[in-house]
């Protein structure tokens, strides 16, 4: 319906928020760590030590700040002038042994820099015991991880939250009453409320995919067709969820709260976007199996990053489809029930 376009605020929320989120998450909220300040401590500056230091200097992840005396290491770390120090053993050239010291106050930076430093130094050492390959994401870019996660979140936000508000708003303004008295079928009302948001979300999907591809260099390895198809199912699912919420509550505030608390939090926590599902306690892991974004994000990761064909995400897609149908049925049912229940509310008034 036309009036969604008239509502400037909604349009802003719907079209601008995804942009901001994707840029924010894609660029800033990454677990990539750049420009780690590093110093080296080497009692014996052999040829292999300077070779290792050259490697560190060459890496874009590190900002090499020179050498430091052993007695100053603690002070440098404590004052925050550096966040990592590599101490080369005096027999480094022969044994290849070294010690790494990190500022553990920032755990994420410390653990990430540890991994980086190790791989850089391993590359320089004559004989590396392991040969580590990161499949699909060789540079370990976190935007690869985040983009599917954000997509799962944004569509929940827009489709579910916006639609949930839209129907409740009609209840508040009283237009819903008139629609109910009119010969329009409830299912038709629901569909006509969903279609505009579906269109908006599709525009969003296009924007996000373009941004991800051109700005964040996320590969669309599995083919755009599959990604769009799976996203479409997910969109309808989110819309149905929003419908159900709005049929249950009576005010816009309640709809907003429910969308935010009941839907956003689980999405963030249980979808595997932030925390690996495998790390969750078993009870919570079971909950995560019911949460649609989990399957969507899973499927998106596979399609985008690993580049599998559509038939390899059949399980995810199947679950999404089943949940969509179930939610649609529930939303329509709830809508019908409402009509009778209204009478009960009037009794109380």
């Amino acid at each position, binding site marked *: *319906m036309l009036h969604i376009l008239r509502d400037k605020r909604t349009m802003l929320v719907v079209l601008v928020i995804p942009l901001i989120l994707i840029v924010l998450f894609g660029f800033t909220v990454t677990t990539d760590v750049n420009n780690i300040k590093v110093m080296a401590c080497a009692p014996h500056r052999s040829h292999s030590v300077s070779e290792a230091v050259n490697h560190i200097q060459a890496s874009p992840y590190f900002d090499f700040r020179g050498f430091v005396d052993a007695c100053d290491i603690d002070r440098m770390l404590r004052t925050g002038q550096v966040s990592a120090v590599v101490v080369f053993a005096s027999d480094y050239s022969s044994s290849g042994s070294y010690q790494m010291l990190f500022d553990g106050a920032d755990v994420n930076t410390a653990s990430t820099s540890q991994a980086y430093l190790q791989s850089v130094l391993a590359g320089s050492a004559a004989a590396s015991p392991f040969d580590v390959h990161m499949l699909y994401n060789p540079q370990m870019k976190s935007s690869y991880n985040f983009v599917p996660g954000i997509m799962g979140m944004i569509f929940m936000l827009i489709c579910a939250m916006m639609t949930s508000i839209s129907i409740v708003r009609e209840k508040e303004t009283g237009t819903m009453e008139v629609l109910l*008295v*009119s010969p329009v079928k409830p299912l038709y009302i629901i569909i006509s409320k969903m279609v505009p948001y579906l269109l908006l979300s599709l525009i969003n999907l296009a924007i996000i995919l373009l941004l991800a591809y051109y700005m964040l260099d996320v590969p669309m390895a599995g083919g755009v067709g599959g990604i769009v198809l799976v996203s479409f199912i997910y969109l309808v699912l989110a819309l149905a969820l929003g419908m159900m919420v709005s049929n249950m509550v009576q005010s816009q505030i309640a709809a907003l709260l429910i969308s935010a608390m009941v839907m956003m939090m689980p999405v963030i926590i249980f979808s595997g976007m932030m925390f690996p599902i495998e790390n969750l306690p078993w009870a919570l892991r079971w909950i995560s199996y019911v949460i649609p974004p989990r399957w969507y994000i899973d499927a998106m990761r596979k399609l985008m990053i690993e580049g599998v064909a559509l038939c390899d995400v059949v399980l995810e897609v199947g679950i999404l489809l089943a949940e969509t149908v179930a939610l649609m049925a529930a939303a329509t049912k709830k809508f019908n029930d409402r009509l*009778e229940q*209204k009478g009960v509310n009037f009794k109380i008034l």
Partner: protein
Amino acid sequence: MDYIIEVKGLTKRFGSFAAVDGISFAVRRGEIFGFLGANGAGKTTAMRMLCGLSFPTEGSGMVAGFDVMTQGEQIKRHIGYMSQRFSLYEDLTVYENMELFGGIYGMKQADIASRSRELLDRINFADHKDDLVQSLPLGWRQKLAFMVATMHSPEIVFLDEPTGGVDPITRRQFWDLIRGAARQGTAIFVTTHYMDEAAYCDRITIMVDGRIKALDAPSALMQQLEAKNMNEVFVKLCR
């Protein structure tokens, strides 16, 4: 006599509570039928049953020739409805609202155009056809809502406290509209709290605790109860 609404023993129970308790009445074509009662007397519940929004627990009723028990959908097609709350889309223009509701009732584009011109001319509002409803004062909005409710030329229009919060002059104009529509043969079923408005009705019913306490022309009721005005009638009956 040709009745547009005919109701016998209509009852709606919620659990053991009877919101509407066996009411019977009939409304003629082109009649302005006032439906009065204190808050919670069951007016709205009764109206919802007549509009096909909720099913009666007992009793029978015909609205526009259709059974309220089984033909709710057909009833909806033949009635107009205006709720106590303002109910047009504020972010659509006057004409877009008419277009939307005309479309909902299955009117053709050409019919919508001619009908809306006719209606807007009647309230001298054709100049404001493309104004956003938001920008209009409440009185105008209410008149407009009534026009929209009669877009599809229904045989009967249900008005649920249509003049709540409207100033006396606009209320008078509003009632002129209602009477105009009634003269053209549209029956009007109206609930109200304003007793001076009750005097405009051809006949009124007063509901108390889910039952009809009185049903007659306003002047006849005043005579029966030896009341000077409708206010007194209402107070005497409801006490």
